[in-house]
């Protein structure tokens, strides 16, 4: 029954994109739909897949993020009174490992990195770029976790981050700028986002003095900001080296 509701919900969510493509194809471009059967089958697959995925998130990933946050801030790790910021070291470490591992394996990033290597004539190395983005995400999520624990103002962190990015933009080679700005948004995948969100909410719930509503969100923002920095930095260093060699 629940799955049926899920399927109906997915159908509603898919309608706009299916409608957009149909209307523009038939009305504006005025071309018949190629291979209608395949199209319909694909849409059915999308709807089933979305319903199953969302159900799985509720069953596994959301509870998992919550649980990890609760366990890592539990009495085994944090002394009952007088906890200082550094007692949460395992939380930061978990956040960083999660960010690093998921980003390094992210398929869309692999594709983008290869493209960037090809276009830059080898000055940017695909592996170097992937490492740069992964380190950026890892550092970003860890710092975001620190912000939740310490209760700092989100916009101050993000504002200073953007000032750094701004500063770097003026010194980075122009071909990398679009790619760097994009890399922030691209890397946070469909699997990572829910888990990281749950981790943040769980942290805000478990750390004394924090409010889920005020402090729980913001990790994804960190994860999208810091790769911009590391990619710009990497490009600056890479061009510097290739210039020195040439």
């Amino acid at each position, binding site marked *: 029954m629940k799955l049926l509701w899920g399927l109906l919900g997915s159908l509603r969510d*898919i309608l*706009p*994109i299916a409608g957009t*493509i149909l209307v*523009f*194809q038939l009305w*504006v471009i005025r071309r018949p739909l*190629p291979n209608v059967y395949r199209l319909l089958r*694909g*849409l059915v*697959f*999308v709807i089933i*897949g*979305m319903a*199953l*995925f*969302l*159900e*799985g*998130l509720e*069953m*596994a990933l959301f*509870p998992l993020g919550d649980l*990890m946050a609760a*366990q*890592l801030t539990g009495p*085994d790790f944090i002394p009952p009174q007088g906890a200082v910021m550094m007692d949460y070291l*395992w939380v930061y470490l978990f956040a960083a490992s*999660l960010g690093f591992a*998921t980003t*390094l*394996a992210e398929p*869309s990033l692999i594709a983008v990195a290869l493209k960037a290597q090809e276009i830059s004539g080898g000055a940017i190395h695909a592996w170097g770029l992937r490492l740069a983005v992964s380190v950026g995400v890892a550092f970003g999520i860890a710092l975001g976790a620190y912000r939740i624990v310490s209760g700092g103002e*989100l*916009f101050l962190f993000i*504002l200073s981050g953007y000032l750094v990015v701004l500063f770097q933009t003026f010194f980075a080679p*122009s071909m990398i*700028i*679009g*790619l760097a*700005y*994009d890399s922030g*948004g*691209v890397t*946070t*995948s*469909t*699997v990572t*986002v*829910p888990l990281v*969100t*749950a981790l943040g909410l769980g942290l805000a719930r478990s750390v004394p003095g924090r409010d889920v*509503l*005020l402090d729980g*969100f*913001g*990790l994804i*923002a960190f*994860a*999208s900001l810091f790769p911009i920095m590391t990619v710009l930095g990497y490009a600056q260093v890479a061009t510097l080296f290739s210039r020195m060699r040439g």
Partner: protein
Amino acid sequence: MVASCIDLAPVLIVVLIFQLGVICEPLPNVVDMIGGMLLIVLGLTFFVIGLEQALFPLGESMAYAFARKGSLPWLLAFAFCLGFATTIAEPALIAVADKAAQVASGGGVIASTDQARQQYALGLRLTVALAVGVALVVGVMRIVRGWPLHWLMIVGYAIVMMITGFAPPEIIGIAYDSGGVTTSTITVPLVTALGVGLAHSIKGRNPVVDGFGLIAFASLTPMMFVMIYGMVSM
């Protein structure tokens, strides 16, 4: 199937290492966890196969077609609809919007009824979708007219910071997150196709410099729009 497993594998590895090596406790609800993971892998597989069979080939060829010879108004209309519609279908955003609604109702910002939560989550998603649509319109105009990317980004972030000063503090976190959440499985390939197609079809445009950058806008405008949504609805 393989691709979805690869998506999930690093998450599982990190979690297992921490569970076994650091926390040293057996996972509770192992059956639910494993069942949920299987559903995620299965769901993602179906989802991606379906996208690749139905939406991506058609969407990409349309994006190219519009970029090459469409009139500007139609091109902009297509860009808006594409941004709006792909965002509504983005699974990560659906999940996060639901979470945000739960948190908001738990914190007393909205009523704690199912209806209020659903309304809030849907409102959030519609707002983000509208924002991505507008972002693509601006982004396409930028590519057509050749405006420099970094100036627009600077102005954009200045506006974000300004709105932050007026927005209710409860909305800021989710607003800042929404930018990164939206650009995911469906949006990125279709939007990139539009950008690269455009940059190819206009003389003097470099696909690398101009083709990328649409996603950057799409992660910027949701911050503004969601904060405004928070100001209006709270």
